[in-house]
């Protein structure tokens, strides 16, 4: 699986985990993406921003190969979109975690089962399931609430369960599609901090948001998508002191737990 991908534009840098090469995506008559080229290396934290409907979600769905480019190529973990058999897609997806704005938890299952479910689907050995679920739920701070049902949790907690679920198969890539869209600033900041921690342990995180306030607090690489084009891709490397204050610091009397 880890054969070095070679495409029309030459061999890939082995550090590249996601590569877009002149990607065009047409939805019926609409051009959703046009000539998008970028690459993301192992372990990067990338923020994709731009107005709603600019094509952020399309980029994420191209990465999971839920969509395929009409022109150009997408390469993820050495798997090339133009040479991808249907049967191999599940294997790609097992290396990618996905978090949504609306959490998408299974409402009729306990927190524990929501996470364990993913392990069972991919056939993790039973002995490891409990260990892994415990590991990720502890990481997001919800092991104590493992027997609750999703609706008994706050929005932030539900999103943390979703993140635990995305991480339980130890993916190399975590895609977060507007993960803070439904959350208040304090909770949003918690989720962002959690994503940074996950990134620190080596997982490549791709975070999409249309919220400029959030983008300003980042010191990482920010890609701006507008009308289906990549209009800016900057490694910001902004020192901590020059970044906008954390979302929580602007709050009047920040609360500890926003349910």
């Amino acid at each position, binding site marked *: 699986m880890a054969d070095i991908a070679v495409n029309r534009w030459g061999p890939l840098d082995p550090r590249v985990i996601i590569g877009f090469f002149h990607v065009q995506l047409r939805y019926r008559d609409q051009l959703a993406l046009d000539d998008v080229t970028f690459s993301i290396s192992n372990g990067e934290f990338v923020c994709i921003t731009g107005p709603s409907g600019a094509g952020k979600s399309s980029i994420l769905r191209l990465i*999971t190969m839920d969509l395929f480019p009409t022109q150009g190529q997408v390469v993820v973990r050495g798997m090339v979109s133009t040479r991808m058999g*249907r*049967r191999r*897609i*599940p*294997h*790609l*997806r*097992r*290396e*990618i975690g*996905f978090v949504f704005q609306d959490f*998408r938890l*299974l409402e009729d299952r306990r927190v524990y089962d929501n996470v364990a*479910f*993913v*392990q*069972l*689907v*991919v*056939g*993790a*050995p*039973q002995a490891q*399931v409990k260990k892994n679920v415990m590991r990720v739920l502890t990481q997001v701070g919800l092991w104590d609430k493992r027997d609750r049902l999703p609706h008994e949790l706050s929005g932030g907690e539900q999103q943390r369960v979703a993140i635990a*679920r995305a991480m339980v*198969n130890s993916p190399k890539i975590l895609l977060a599609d507007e993960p803070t869209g439904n959350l208040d600033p304090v909770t949003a900041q918690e989720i962002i901090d959690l994503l940074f921690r996950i990134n620190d342990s080596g997982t490549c995180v791709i975070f999409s948001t249309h919220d400029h306030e959030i983008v300003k607090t980042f010191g990482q690489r920010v890609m701006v998508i507008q009308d289906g084009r990549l209009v800016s891709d900057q490694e910001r490397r902004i020192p901590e002191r020059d970044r906008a204050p954390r979302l929580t610091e602007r709050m009047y009397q920040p609360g500890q737990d926003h349910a």
Partner: protein
Amino acid sequence: MLRRGQLVYLARESLAGFSRRRLTTGVTILIMGSALLVLALFVLVALNLGMMLERARAGVDVRVFLVDGLDAERQAALQPPFLAVPGVQAARYISKEQALAELQRELGDEAGLLETLPENPLPASYHLELAPGHRDADAVARIAADLRRWPEVDDVVFSQIWLAALENWAELFRWGSLIVSLVVLVAAVFVISNTVRLTMASSRRVIEIQILVGATDGFVRSPFLIEGMLHGLFAGIVAMGVLAGGFRLLSLRLAGLEFFSLGQVAGFVLFCVLLGFLGSMAAISQYLRLRKTA
């Protein structure tokens, strides 16, 4: 290959779907069971008709009466030509004396009547037995017409009329039941596929997440396939149970009927499971296809 954890998960998931929608499941099994009951009933009647027909044919009695005045030697010499007629399996010679003795035996106490006769009035005859495949009304009539042209033959007698009628009925019934069966089959598959579609709609999120985290298509499908097959299994058992009960009641009044053999019952139930499989397969494939184009 699936691991044990996956199997346990799939089994639990299928059964959960089954019991979570108890009402839908019950109604589906009842509707499908009724449809299958009709099907089984038709098959059973067709089977019994076929058996009756077979029995009737085996009993088809072709008696060839010989003209009077042939000597015993010529009568006996007719056996090889009779056997040479296509479709004739055995030919038993019955002399005048044997025929009289037989009649005497049948008359029993009244055999004395025969003593009054001046001579034996019974003709010598051959009793022909037809091979399977030559026992239907058409074949029998053809053979009889053939034999009547022989100079040694006086007359040929067989139970023609009711056999032909029975065959006509059986034929009509076979076609009728074939058509009804087809309709019922389509209905049964439709009922199952609808139920599975309902199940899938209510498990949309589970399916979506399974696909997202890298479940194979087969893995996504299997709980629904298992559910459909369970529907088929139970509907088949219900249909067979009701039919067997009804049959018991009926056979108290009507002798000579036969129920399916154990193997046939098993075959029918297995067939119902297959219908369940097909129904859910149709629903799932449609669902996954729609999801792809969405």
